[in-house]
C-alpha cells in the first residue's frame, strides 16, 4: 500500500506541470497586449506600462513562468487588478457558497440515483427499468442552467414557495434559511448528475449480478436481498466511488453556470465577473485552484480504490 501511494503521488507531477503550463499560457493567448486589453482603451500609456511591469510581462517568458510557479509555492496566486485583497482571500470569500451548493447537490443526486440505479438493474427490461432509463436520458439532456430557470418559473413565479435567487449564509441566517435558498439551485445542479450516476449504478450492479459468484450464491439458495446487499453492492461499489469523485468535480464546475442563474456569490460568479472585467489573474487563480482540487480528488479516489480492492495496490 505504501508503495502504491508513493507511486500515485509521483505520477501527479507531470500532470501538475502540464496544468500549470496550460493555465500560465492562457494569458498569453490574448490578441495584442494583455495589459492593454485588461485596462481598456482609456488607460494611458504609462498606466499600461506600469501594469506590464507589475505583472512581469516585460520579462522573458520562461522567467515569468518560474516566477509564477514560485509564487504559487509561497501561496501567492497573483493579484487582482480590481479587488484590493490578496488572491487567497478573494477565493476563500467566494468558495463557501460554492462548496455548500456542491455538497447539497451531490447529496440530492446520490439519494435519487443509488436506489434508482439498483431498482433498474434488478428489474432489468421491465417497466420500472424503462421508466428510469427514460428519465435518466431526459435528465442528461437538460442542462442545469435551463432546468434552474424552469424550476424558478414553476416554484418561484407560479407557486411562490421557494426563493428565485439569492444566498443566505449559515452564520447570519441559520441552517434552514441557508437550505431554503439553496434548494432550487441544488436540484437543478444535481439532477443531471443523478441521471449519470443512475446509469452508472445500473450497469455496474448488472455486471456484478451476472458474475459467477452471484450464480453460486443463488444456487446455494441465498435470499435475493442478501445477495444484493452483501455481494452485488459491495463489488459494484468501486466504479460507483469513481463516479462520486468525478461528480464532485463536475458539480463544482457546473456550479459556475447555476450560480449565475440564481445569483449566488460563489466561485462561478467570481469567474464570470472577472471575465467581464478582464481580470485575468483571478481567472488563472480560480482555474488553478479547481484543477488542483480535481487532481487531489482523483488521488483520493484512487487511494480509496486501493483500500476497497487490495488487488489494485498490489499490481
Amino acid at each position, binding site marked *: 500500500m505504501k508503495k502504491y501511494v508513493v507511486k500515485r503521488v509521483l505520477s501527479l507531477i507531470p500532470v501538475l506541470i502540464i496544468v500549470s503550463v496550460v493555465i500560465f499560457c492562457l494569458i498569453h493567448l490574448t490578441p495584442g497586449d494583455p495589459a492593454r486589453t485588461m485596462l481598456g482603451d482609456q488607460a494611458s500609456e504609462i498606466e499600461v506600462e506600469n501594469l506590464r511591469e507589475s505583472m512581469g510581462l516585460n520579462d522573458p517568458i520562461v522567467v515569468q513562468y518560474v516566477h509564477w510557479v514560485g509564487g504559487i509555492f509561497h501561496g501567492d496566486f497573483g493579484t487582482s487588478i480590481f479587488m484590493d485583497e490578496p488572491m487567497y482571500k478573494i477565493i476563500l470569500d467566494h468558495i463557501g457558497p460554492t462548496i455548500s451548493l456542491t455538497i447539497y447537490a451531490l447529496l440530492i443526486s446520490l439519494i435519487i440515483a443509488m436506489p434508482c440505479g439498483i431498482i433498474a438493474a434488478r428489474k432489468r427490461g421491465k417497466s420500472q427499468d424503462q421508466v428510469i432509463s427514460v428519465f435518466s436520458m431526459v435528465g442528461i439532456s437538460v442542462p442545469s442552467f*435551463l432546468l434552474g430557470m424552469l424550476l424558478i418559473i414553476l416554484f418561484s413565479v407560479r407557486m411562490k414557495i421557494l426563493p428565485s435567487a439569492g444566498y443566505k449564509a449559515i452564520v447570519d441566517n441559520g441552517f434552514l434559511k441557508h437550505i431554503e435558498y439553496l434548494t432550487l439551485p441544488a436540484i437543478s445542479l444535481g439532477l443531471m448528475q443523478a441521471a449519470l450516476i443512475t446509469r452508472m449504478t445500473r450497469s455496474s450492479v448488472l455486471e456484478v449480478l451476472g458474475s459467477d459468484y452471484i450464480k453460486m450464491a443463488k444456487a446455494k439458495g441465498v435470499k435475493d436481498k442478501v445477495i444484493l446487499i452483501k455481494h452485488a453492492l459491495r463489488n459494484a461499489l468501486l466504479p460507483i466511488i469513481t463516479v462520486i469523485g468525478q461528480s464532485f468535480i463536475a458539480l463544482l464546475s457546473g456550479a459556475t453556470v447555476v450560480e449565475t442563474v440564481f445569483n449566488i456569490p460563489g466561485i462561478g460568479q467570481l469567474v464570470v465577473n472577472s471575465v467581464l472585467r*478582464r481580470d485575468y489573474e483571478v481567472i488563472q487563480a480560480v482555474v488553478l485552484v479547481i484543477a488542483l482540487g480535481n487532481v487531489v480528488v482523483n488521488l483520493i479516489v484512487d487511494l480509496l480504490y486501493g483500500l476497497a480492492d487490495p488487488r489494485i495496490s498490489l499490481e
Partner: protein
Amino acid sequence: MDNISAKTTNMQEEENIAVLKKQLKKEQRQIKIHKFTNNKLAMIGAVITIAMALVAILAPVIAPAGPYDMLVSDRLKNPSSVHIFGTDTFGRDLFSRIIYGARVSMGVGAAVSTISLVVGMVIGLYSSYYKTLDSILMRICDGLKAIPAILLAIAFMAVMGTSVRNVIISLAIVYIPDIARITRSSALMVKEQMYIESMKALGASANRIIWFHIAPNVLSPVIVQTSFIFATAIVQEASLSFLGVGVPVPAPSWGNILYEGKTVIYNAWWMIVLPGLSMAFPVLGLNLFGDGIREVMDPMSN
C-alpha cells in the same frame, strides 16, 4: 496433369472461401444495421437529430421572419397565431430566432465534434503506435482533462474574445483529449492482434498500418463518443453564451435567447421554456443515437 487440376481446385476453393467471407461480412453488417433499426430509442434519436439538422439547413424557408426583424410595438407578446412562439424583448419573432438559432448552435456542435474527431483520432492513433510520442501527448491530454471543461472553455473565451470561431476553437480544445484517449485505448488493443504483426512482418509502412488497418477498427467507440461530444457541445455553447462569453449578441444562438429570457423570467415564460425545449430536443436525440450505436457495437450489452 494431376498437379494442374489440384491447383485449379485449390484456387477454386480459395475463391469460394473469399466469396463466403464476403457474404459473412455482409450478413454481419446487415445484422448490425438490423439491430440498430430495431432499437426503437436509437431510431427516434436518429430521426430527431436529422430533423433538427434539416431545420437548421432550411431555416430561411421555415422561419416566417428574419432573426433580426424587430417590431417594437410587438414587444414581449404571448404565443399566438401571429407569433406561434411569441416575441422577445425587442419584438422579434421568437420562433424565427429559435429556428435560426439551430443554425448557430447545431453548427457549433457539428464543427466542434468534427474537429475533435479528426484531431483526436490523429493524436490517439499516432500515440498508440509510437511510445515516446505517447507519453508526451497523453500527459498533455491528462493536464487538459484535469481542468473541468466549462472552466477551461470560459478561460479560453475570456482571453480570446467572444466570437463563434473562438467558441468552436475553445470547445474543440476541451474535447480533443476525450477522442484521443478513446482512440488510443482501442488502438492499443487492435495493435496487439496477429494481423497487425503480420503486416509489420510484410514490411508495411507505419502510416499504412495506422490508417488502413488500425483506424477502421477503432471507429465504432470513437463515433459513439463523437455523438456525445456533439450533444455536449450544443449545451456548452449555450452555457457560454448564457454567461455572456460565447456567441456575441444579437446573433440568435439558443444560449443568447435563454440569456435574454432570464431577464424577463417573471413575465415571459415562453422566452425560457420554448428555446429550452428546442435545445433539449437535439441533445436528447444525439444522446439516444449514441447510446443506440453503443448497444449495437458492444456485444456485451446483450
